[in-house]
C-alpha cells in the first residue's frame, strides 16, 4: 500500500544528518565570497535540495501516490506564475521624470 511506507530508524537518522550537513554547507558558503547573483542561486539551490529531501523522505513522497507529488509540483508552479508575472511588471516599469 502506497501510504504505509515504514522507514527504518537508521534511514531517518541518515536523512536528518544529510540535512544538517546541508545546513552547514549553506552557512559555510557565505564565508567564501561568491559574486552577486550566484550567492543567491547557491543559497536557493541548497534550500531546494533540503526541501526536496524533507518532502521525499520525511514526508514519504518518494513512496506516495503520483497525485500527491503532482500537488506539490503544482503549488510550486503556481507560485512561480505569481512571482514571474508580477516581476514582468515590477522589473520593467519606466516611470517618466518631470522635466520641471
Amino acid at each position: 500500500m502506497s501510504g504505509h511506507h515504514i522507514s527504518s530508524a537508521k534511514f531517518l537518522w541518515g536523512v536528518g544528518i544529510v540535512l544538517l550537513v546541508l545546513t552547514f554547507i549553506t552557512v559555510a558558503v557565505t564565508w567564501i565570497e561568491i559574486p552577486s547573483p550566484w550567492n543567491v542561486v547557491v543559497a536557493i539551490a541548497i534550500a531546494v535540495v533540503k526541501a526536496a529531501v524533507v518532502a521525499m523522505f520525511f514526508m514519504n513522497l518518494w513512496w506516495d501516490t503520483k497525485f500527491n507529488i503532482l500537488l506539490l509540483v503544482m503549488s510550486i508552479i503556481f507560485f512561480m506564475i505569481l512571482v514571474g508575472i508580477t516581476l514582468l511588471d515590477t522589473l520593467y516599469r519606466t516611470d517618466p521624470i518631470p522635466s520641471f
Partner: protein
Amino acid sequence: MAQTSANVKKGDHVQHHFVDSDQQFESAKMGMWIFLVTEILFFGGLFLAYIVFRSWYPELYLMASDHLDTFWGAVNTVVLIGSSLTVAMAIRSAQLNQQKGLIINLAITIALACIFMVIKYFEYTHKFDLGIYPGAYYAYDGIAHDKANIFFSIYYMMTGLHGIHVLIGIGLMIWLIVRARKGHFHSEYYTPVEITGLYWHLVDIIWIFLFPLLYLID
C-alpha cells in the same frame, strides 16, 4: 500485546462513508496535501513581497540582513530539522505500535519547537530594544536606507507567520500526545499522527527557505 489490542479496535475508526481503513487513510493524507498546497501559496504571497522588494532594493537587503544574527538563525534551523526527524520517528513508532516511542518522540518535538520559539523571542526582543519595529514604528537609525522599515515589515510578517504555524504545531502535538496516551493510535490507525507530521515538515521546509533568504545575505 499491543498487537492484540489493535486487532480489537480494528475497524472502529472507519467512518461510515468510507469502505475501509485504507480509503480513509489515503483520503485524509490527500486532503492534508491539498491543504499544504494552500499553505505554500499562503507563504508564497510573502515570498513574492520579499522578491519584489529585493529586486528593487538589493542593497537594502544586504545592509539589513547584517542585523539578523546568523548564528541563532542557524541554531534554529538545526532545531527545526531535529524536530522534523523526531516527528518522522514518531510516525514510525505509531506504525510499529510503539506507544512509548510515539509519546517520547512527540514530546521531544514539542521541546524542540519550544526552543525554537524561545530563540525567536530573544531575537525579537533584541530588535525591539534597538527600535527595529515594522513599518511606521521603525525607529532605528543604524541602517542608511529609507526603506529599511519595509524590509523589517517583511521580516516580521514572514517569521511571525511562521512562528504562529510553529505554535499551532505545538498545539497539535499536545493533542496527539493526549490521544496517544489514551491508546488511540496503532499500526492500523495513525492518520492524525501522519497528517500532523506532514504539516510539521512543511513548517520546517518553509524555515529552510526563510533562513538563507533572511539571514544569509552577504
